[in-house]
């Protein structure tokens, strides 16, 4: 399976994602500079973490106008999997591919720590390798991960199973104490209507090897590979 890893000026998880996909998952990955417009030949697109354009004005506000984003929107419209991680999630929201906004963390501080996530919907392109309701542990590293959307949007997301992950405690309890940034209803990851676009704040590419402390992150990338396998002609 070929993954396109988009690189905006200021992106810095591109290499981490490439290592996770190639070394740890054994799939193919290639970097796509933000000025390029052609994503043909790729089976999935990754918008990695980073500070695109220095996070100036708003996280992802400028990156979303990069030439490559037109191709990403077409790629998503064609139903192919697109995953936005941290800054990538912010870019997807600014581009309108996902609803809502990532605002500044409620305590106004940058957070780099491990969090627990409860898998809210296990049959999606990105979570089919996980058991429903299973709890995984992934690192977060952001200053603006406070997910916001109006009540109607939140209700629609929940009703249609488009909340992929919620911040929870080790036992899976969705509590205020387990919410690192003030996100509405502890939401840590959401999907688009068709279910082929996922935005999540935690970094799966940072936990794909035992030496790093665990492999929970692999399940998300593996889900993408497994889905592609089932769909292949």
């Amino acid at each position, binding site marked *: 399976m070929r993954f396109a890893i988009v690189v905006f000026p200021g992106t810095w998880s591109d290499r981490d994602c490439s290592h996770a996909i190639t070394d740890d998952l054994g799939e193919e990955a290639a970097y796509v500079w933000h000025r390029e417009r052609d994503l043909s030949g790729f089976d999935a697109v990754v918008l990695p973490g980073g500070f695109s354009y220095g996070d100036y004005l708003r996280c992802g506000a400028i990156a979303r106008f990069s030439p490559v984003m037109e191709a990403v929107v077409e790629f998503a419209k064609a139903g192919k999997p697109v995953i936005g991680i941290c800054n990538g999630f912010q870019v997807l929201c600014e581009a309108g591919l996902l609803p809502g*906004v990532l605002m500044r963390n409620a305590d*106004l501080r940058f957070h780099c720590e491990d969090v627990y996530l409860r898998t809210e919907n296990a049959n999606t392109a990105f979570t089919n390798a996980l058991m429903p309701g299973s709890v995984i542990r992934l690192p977060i590293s952001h200053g603006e991960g406070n997910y916001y959307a109006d009540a109607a949007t939140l209700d629609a997301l929940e009703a249609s199973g488009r909340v992929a992950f919620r911040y929870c405690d080790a036992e899976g309890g969705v509590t205020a104490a387990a919410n690192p940034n*003030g996100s509405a209803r502890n939401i840590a990851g959401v999907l688009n209507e068709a279910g082929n676009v996922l935005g999540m704040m935690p970094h799966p590419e940072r936990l794909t090897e035992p030496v790093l402390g665990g492999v929970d992150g692999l399940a998300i990338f593996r889900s993408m590979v497994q889905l592609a396998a089932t769909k292949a002609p």
Partner: protein
Amino acid sequence: MAVATKTFLARVEVTLKLTVNDPQGNTVKGALASLGFDGVSAVRVGKHMEIRLTAEGAAEAERRVEEMCRQLLANPVIEQYRFTIESAEG
């Protein structure tokens, strides 16, 4: 005959919609209270932008700044904007 363009200064205020929680505003309000400023009932923090641009007239400048706000400077999901235009010939 080249069109004479004038220089304008736009002052743009981008603030969070009232329905949206503003942790930064609350923090500043708390800090003001701890410094002894009583009587402060609310604080909201947003972005202030100054844009120097050339245009044929104020109306055109206004139209372009409106478009800048709509496309880039404000995120309609959570933000609202207002701006003033003044001549910057001086």
